[in-house]
């Protein structure tokens, strides 16, 4: 079912606002196709939209009249036909986090909780919904990805919905439970003997030879656009204003880059506030990584343009453990130009962040969400975020049920007792 099917006037063919693809480094343009690399300079390809045409049709009222899913921003997404999958994806809760705000000593704090994203409980459902829909537009019959967890789950699930073949490449040292969360959807899983970065490289070479849609390789320009919907939703849920600070977990750096871009796009199309000139430039974006794999944080701290890749990532935030981040340069630029900063969290700080989020807001966030809480603490301490600056949004990228391993043995064990009132009351006395 597509969003169009849930509205009064379903449209088989919709107006496309996509002009084609454009190299973000050299400006070279080409028609939309399954490739991520500029043939002239190897630079990353982005999507070129017809901004004038979008400006003529896109208003807050138009968006607000649509179903509450990620496709309500369809003019700003790179499809040319109604989406094939993802009718239930997006519009995740923006939770006002007053108890967590008090614990951290800030005035206004919100959690954008993509741990509630449909159908696989991470923000990857958004990007994969775009990539799989695009794969169908391009006539591909197989989708694939390089992943260790959230992306694998999302790709396998949406491929099943679309009836496409799915091949997922993983490092061969993954825990069985993580593999299971992908295999259940009927995907073929191939375990590569190496790290995630090795898996990524072999997928890039396979995508170069076989006509498969690798969602995070040759479909990446389309896939990445799906991340903008996180930022669109944050602004809409805040009453069409952008937060003073957004703290975003970083792996490859694409999510942060696209959230920053989404705020700029909303401003450009006059969708923010009452005045068209609402200050998107004052929306500072900050990045969070695990201390054992923080190549983008280091670039920001050292104001350095070149990535120094991490050979052996060591952090419990496995979904952030990319030693060679593809969008590191773009993320650094987005952070710096917004006036933001970045911070790394140790394993202990990540666990403390997960526990604090759960104990104050009732949200069981994945390790990456714990890293975001820890990064916020660091950024408050260093003065990069002021306690009374205005709304702060923390992005949680996935549900904690998917990353339980680091918590094993950390949380208190249940109290065991025989079923008598005397035993219970003895236990109560021992707690005092």
């Amino acid at each position: 079912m597509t969003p169009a099917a849930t509205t009064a006037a379903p449209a088989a063919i919709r107006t496309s606002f996509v002009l084609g693809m454009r190299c973000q480094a050299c400006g070279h343009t080409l028609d939309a196709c399954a490739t991520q690399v500029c043939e002239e300079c190897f630079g990353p390809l982005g999507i070129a939209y017809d901004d004038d045409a979008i400006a003529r049709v896109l208003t807050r009222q138009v968006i607000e009249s649509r179903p509450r899913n990620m496709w309500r921003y369809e003019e700003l997404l790179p499809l040319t036909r109604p989406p094939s999958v993802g009718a239930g994806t997006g519009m995740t809760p923006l939770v006002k986090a007053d108890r967590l705000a008090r614990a951290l000593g800030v005035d206004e704090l919100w959690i954008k909780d993509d741990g509630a994203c449909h159908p696989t409980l991470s923000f990857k459902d958004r990007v994969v919904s775009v990539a799989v829909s695009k794969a169908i537009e391009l006539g591909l019959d197989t989708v694939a990805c390089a992943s260790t967890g959230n992306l694998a789950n999302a790709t396998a699930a949406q491929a099943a919905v679309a009836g496409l073949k799915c091949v997922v490449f993983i490092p061969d040292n993954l825990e069985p439970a993580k593999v299971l969360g992908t295999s259940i959807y009927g995907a073929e899983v191939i375990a590569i003997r190496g790290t995630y970065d090795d898996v990524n490289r072999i997928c890039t070479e396979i995508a170069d030879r076989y006509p498969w849609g690798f969602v995070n390789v040759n479909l990446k320009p389309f896939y990445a656009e799906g991340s903008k919907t996180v930022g669109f939703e944050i602004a809409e849920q805040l009453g069409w204003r952008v937060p003073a600070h957004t703290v975003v977990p970083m792996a490859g750096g694409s999510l942060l880059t696209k959230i920053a871009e989404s705020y700029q796009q909303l401003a450009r199309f006059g969708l923010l506030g009452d005045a068209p000139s609402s200050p998107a430039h004052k929306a500072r974006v900050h990045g969070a990584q695990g201390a054992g794999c923080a190549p983008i944080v280091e670039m920001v701290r050292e104001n350095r343009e070149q990535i120094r890749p991490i050979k052996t990532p060591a952090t419990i935030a496995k979904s952030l453990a990319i030693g060679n981040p593809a969008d590191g340069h773009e993320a650094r630029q987005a952070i710096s130009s917004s006036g933001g900063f970045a911070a790394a969290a140790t394993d202990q700080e990540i666990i403390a962040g997960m526990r604090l989020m759960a104990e104050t807001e009732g949200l069981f966030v994945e390790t990456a969400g714990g890293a975001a809480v820890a990064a916020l603490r660091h950024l408050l301490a260093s003065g990069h975020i002021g306690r009374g600056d205005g709304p702060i949004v923390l992005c949680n990228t996935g549900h904690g049920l998917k990353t339980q391993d680091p918590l094993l043995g950390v949380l208190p064990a249940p109290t065991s007792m025989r079923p008598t009132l005397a035993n219970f009351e003895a236990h109560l006395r021992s707690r005092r």
Partner: protein
Amino acid sequence: MATVRIPTPLRKLTQGKEEVVASGATIGALIASLEASFPGLKERICDDAGQVRRFVNIFANDEDIRFLKNLDTPVKDSDEISIVPAIAGGR
């Protein structure tokens, strides 16, 4: 002679060949030898300062040369060199 895998964006310069052979004691020398056989190839891989562009990764027998000696990484005849676009990933 080492074997060099050529990605799609560079195959216009190698007459469509996916794999070519090239000589050179180091990666830097190998790129110079590729340039001699396939003019224009070096400037696509390296920037004006002669360093590998940030959108390009080079692997010597599956190891990223940034973990070895970059352009000074030694190359043997039996080695397999891959030139791979950097733009991929997101787990």
